[in-house]
C-alpha cells in the first residue's frame, strides 16, 4: 500500500480508539453484506433450470435463481406485445437510447436536435403501433414493459417541459388574467397526488366525454402525466427565472429586443442553466413515477415483473424480478444524473 494511503487511513480511520472501533465495526458490516450478496447472487446462484422447483432444489434455497430471468426477461421487457413482433419495441428502446445519447452532444442543439427527436418519435410511434407500411397493427393495450415506461417518461417530460416554461412565464406575467390562470393551474395540480390525476384521466374523464367518443387510455394517462409534471417543472423554471438579476432584463429592453426575443435569447438560457439541478431532480422523480400507471391498468415494467412472478411454474422470485427492473431504472436515472453534472460543468465556463 502506498504510504500516502496509509497516512490517510491513520489520520481518518484509526486516529483514536473510538474511531478504530467504529472503522472495524463498519468494515465487518460491509464485508458481511458484500459477502451475502456475492454468496447469494453468484456462489449459490442457479443459472439454468427447467422450472422454479428445480431451481430452488438446486440452490437449496440459498442462492438466486437467474434461470427465472432467462425464462422471463423477454416478458418483463416487452410484456404482452406480440411475441414475434418484439423486435419492434426492442428497436424503439434502442432508438430512444440513441436519441438520448445523441442529445448529449451540444453541437447538435437547436433546430437539428428538435428535428431528430421529431423524426425519432414518429418512427417509434410507427414501430409500436404499426398498421401502415407493412407492419401489423398492435393496439396500445398490448404495449408494455420497458418501451411503455420509456414512452411515458420521455414523451411525458418532453411535452411537460415546454408547457412548464409557458406556465412559469405566465406566472410572472404583468397581465393579471394570464398570471391568475397560471397560478390557479399550478397550485391546483400541485395540490393533488399524481395518482388521483391518473385516476381522473382513466376513470372519470370518460364519464364526462360525450357518448360514443373514446380517447385511448394510454393517451389519457400520458396527458395526465404531462399536465401533472408541467406544474412541478413550472415552479422549478420560475425559480431559475427569479434568480436572473433585473439588470439583464433592462439591458435586453434597452436594446429593443422585445419580450419574446428577450425571453428566448437572454433570460431563459440563463434561468434554465441555474435550474438544472432541480430540473434533473424532477426528471428523475418523474421517470420513476411512471410506475404509478400500473394502478390504472397500464402494463409497465412493474406490472410485467409482478406478472412474471405469478407464473405457477416460477412463482415467487420477487428479488430476481424486482432486482432486475430496479437495475434498469437505476441505469437510466444514473445516466440522467451524470449527464446533468457534465452539462453543468460545460455550461459553467462563463462563470469564471
Amino acid at each position: 500500500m502506498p504510504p500516502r494511503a496509509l497516512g490517510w487511513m491513520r489520520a481518518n480511520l484509526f486516529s483514536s480508539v473510538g474511531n478504530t472501533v467504529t472503522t472495524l465495526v463498519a468494515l465487518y458490516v460491509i464485508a458481511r453484506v458484500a459477502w451475502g450478496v456475492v454468496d447469494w447472487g453468484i456462489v449459490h446462484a442457479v443459472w439454468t433450470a427447467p422450472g422454479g422447483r428445480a431451481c430452488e432444489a438446486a440452490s437449496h434455497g440459498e442462492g438466486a435463481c437467474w434461470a427465472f430471468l432467462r425464462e422471463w426477461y423477454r416478458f418483463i421487457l416487452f410484456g404482452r406485445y406480440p411475441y414475434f413482433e418484439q423486435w419492434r419495441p426492442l428497436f424503439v428502446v434502442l432508438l430512444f437510447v440513441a436519441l438520448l445519447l445523441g442529445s448529449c452532444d451540444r453541437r447538435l442543439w437547436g433546430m437539428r436536435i428538435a428535428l431528430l427527436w421529431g423524426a425519432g418519435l414518429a418512427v417509434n410511434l410507427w414501430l409500436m403501433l404499426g398498421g401502415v407500411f407493412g407492419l401489423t397493427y398492435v393496439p396500445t393495450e398490448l404495449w408494455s414493459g420497458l418501451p411503455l415506461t420509456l414512452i411515458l417518461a420521455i414523451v411525458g417530460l418532453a411535452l411537460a417541459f415546454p408547457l412548464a416554461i409557458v406556465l412559469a412565464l405566465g406566472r410572472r406575467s404583468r397581465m393579471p388574467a394570464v398570471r391568475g390562470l397560471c397560478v390557479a393551474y399550478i397550485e391546483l395540480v400541485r395540490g393533488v397526488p399524481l395518482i388521483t390525476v391518473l385516476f381522473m384521466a382513466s376513470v372519470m374523464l370518460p364519464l364526462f366525454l360525450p357518448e360514443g367518443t373514446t380517447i385511448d387510455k394510454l393517451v389519457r394517462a400520458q396527458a395526465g402525466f404531462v399536465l401533472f409534471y408541467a406544474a412541478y417543472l413550472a415552479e422549478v423554471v420560475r425559480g431559475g427565472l427569479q434568480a436572473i438579476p433585473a439588470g439583464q432584463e433592462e439591458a435586453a429592453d434597452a436594446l429593443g429586443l422585445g419580450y419574446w426575443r428577450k425571453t428566448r435569447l437572454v433570460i431563459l438560457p440563463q434561468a434554465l442553466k441555474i435550474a438544472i439541478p432541480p430540473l434533473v431532480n424532477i426528471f428523475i422523480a418523474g421517470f420513476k413515477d411512471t410506475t404509478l400507471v400500473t394502478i390504472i391498468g397500464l402494463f409497465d415494467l412493474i406490472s410485467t415483473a409482478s406478472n412474471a412472478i405469478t407464473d405457477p411454474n416460477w412463482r415467487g422470485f420477487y428479488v430476481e424480478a424486482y432486482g432486475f427492473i430496479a437495475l434498469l431504472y437505476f441505469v437510466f436515472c444514473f445516466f440522467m444524473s451524470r449527464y446533468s453534472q457534465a452539462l453543468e460543468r460545460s455550461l459553467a465556463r462563463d462563470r469564471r
Partner: protein
Amino acid sequence: MNGDERKAMIELHHVHKWYGAFHALNDVSLEVARGEKVVVCGPSGSGKSTMIRCINRLEEHQQGQIIVDGIELTADLKQIDAIRREVGMVFQQFNLFPHLTVMENLTLAPIWVRKMKRSEAEELAMHFLERVRIPEQAEKYPGQLSGGQQQRVAIARALCMRPQVMLFDEPTSALDPEMIKEVLDVMVGLAEDGMTMICVTHEMGFARTVADLMVFMDGGEIVERAPPEKFFAAPESERAQLFLSRILSH
C-alpha cells in the same frame, strides 16, 4: 448646429413620476438638441437615474410628455421599441449577458432587431470593439474581463445599434479607480464624434471636458441648469453650492 436643429433630439415636458407616495420626478422639463452633451449630477436619490431611465421607458412616467426624435413615449409597445432602438444605454452594473461571448453580446441586437446578416454584424462589432480598444477580447466571456473592459464592451454593445442618443447611468460608479479613466476616455471620444449624450455621473473632470450643459437635480426636481464653466465657478442655488463643495472638497 446645422439643419437638424429644427427640433430637439429629446424633450421632456413637465414630467412627473411617483413611486407610491414618493414623488421621484417633480415637473422635470429638459430639451437636448442633436449633438448636445448633458451631464446630470446631484445627490443620491435625487431622481437622476429615474429621469434618464424614463427616456427609454425602463421606468414609466405618470404625467407630462417625453418625446424622443419626434416620437412621443406612450404605452404603445411599438413606439417604445422604436425609441429603444434609437437610444443606447450604459448601466452602472454593465449588465452584459454572461452566457454569451463579447462578440455575441455585441451582435445579438443587430442580428435580431436590425435583421443584419451575421457576418455584417460581426464586422460592425469588431469596428466598435476596436473603437473601445479591446478587439482582442471578442471571443471571451464577460466574466473573464475586468470591470473597465466590461463597461467598454457595454458601450460598444449599445453603439452597435447605431443609436441617435446615448444614455449613461453612472457608468463609472461600480469601477475600481484605476479603470475609471479607460471608460471615460472612450466616452470623451464619443462626445468628440458628435454623439448626443446624457450622462449621469459624479466625474466632474469629465463633465468640465465634454458637457455643453450641466443639470443639477435634487429631490426629484431640476434645481439648476447652466454651462459647465458657469456651474462650477458660480452655482446659483444653495443646494448646488453645497453639493459641489462636498464632492469637490477632496
